């Protein structure tokens, strides 16, 4: 039986969907080998790490997950 894909968002420019109640923590866990050195913005606002577990995503949200890359 498949989960009901009731939340449609984009993550790092890619379409992404998940069950209702998906949190930022859930998305980070599915994208990143480790949450260390990682930060998240939702619709252009930073979501502090302390709120990842309690911030649910809604359909239409644009999530950006970033880390350090060579450069600068």
């Amino acid at each position, binding site marked *: 039986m498949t989960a009901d894909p009731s939340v449609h968002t984009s993550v*790092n*420019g890619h379409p992404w969907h998940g069950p209702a109640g998906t949190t930022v923590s859930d998305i980070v866990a599915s*994208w*990143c*080998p480790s949450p*260390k*050195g*990682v*930060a*998240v*913005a939702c619709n*252009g606002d*930073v979501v*502090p*790490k302390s709120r990842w577990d309690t911030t649910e995503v809604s359909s239409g949200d644009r999530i*950006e*997950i*970033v*880390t*350090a*890359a*060579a*450069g*600068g």
Partner: protein
Amino acid sequence: MILSNPITDEAVTGPADAGAAGPTPDAWVVDGVTMTSRVILGTGGMSSLESLRSALVASAADMATVAVRRVDPAARGSLLDLLRDIGLRVLPNTAGCYTASEAVLTAKLAREAFETDWVKLEVIGDDRTLLPDPIELVAAAEELVEAGFVVFPYTNDDPILARRLQQVGCATVMPLGSPIGSGMGIANPHNIALIVEDAEVPVILDAGIGTASDACVAMELGCDGVLVASAVTRAQHPALMAAAIRDAVVAGRAAHRAGRIPRRRHAEASSSFAGMIEARPGTGS
């Protein structure tokens, strides 16, 4: 101690500590943190993490810049782990941002991700020259300072813009020598000297260094340090160039503190004429 500006020959007040007892330990301070290395390495352009590691070690830098980019789930190896292993401080960079609001968001993400208030603020005007957009830069700097960031602004060589950035509270100013990656060295040493004379914060020459002598000249002009990326990462032998720049910065800093002779249009004999032997027979009086 009266020294001479290496470009204009004007007398300038030199470091008070280079007296008969010898120079005092020479470090620079930003945000209350004592930095011993005067080389900051940019990590962009390196072919592999392993090459980056050897260049970082060879440079003796104690800080390196990183860009803030989307996580790539397929990426192998961690830049942050590498920097931590070597014991380098991370200086996140808002590289790639064109507007103040992009730069501010990037800085805030960096603060969350890397747990540092320090940020190199780069806000560029176009992608061909990568020159800073001064208007967006000052706006972003002001907002970030107010939000508690320690701002290292990448700026051009305009002394007035450098002064404005200090007025809004930047912790350093980082004027370019020439465009990022151009390797053209210091295009306008007069302006860099003006920025140094006027500055009340550390001045870091950032962008355009192509080889060791450029880094040496930056230090001779009175800069407190240099930030190099392409000169090292894109050199044929990055670790060797990193070591050369490390040594050039030490040499340039010492030369600055030593107080060079002024440039003259005519000779000034280093040997006195007193005690000269008689002229050859048949000549002279």
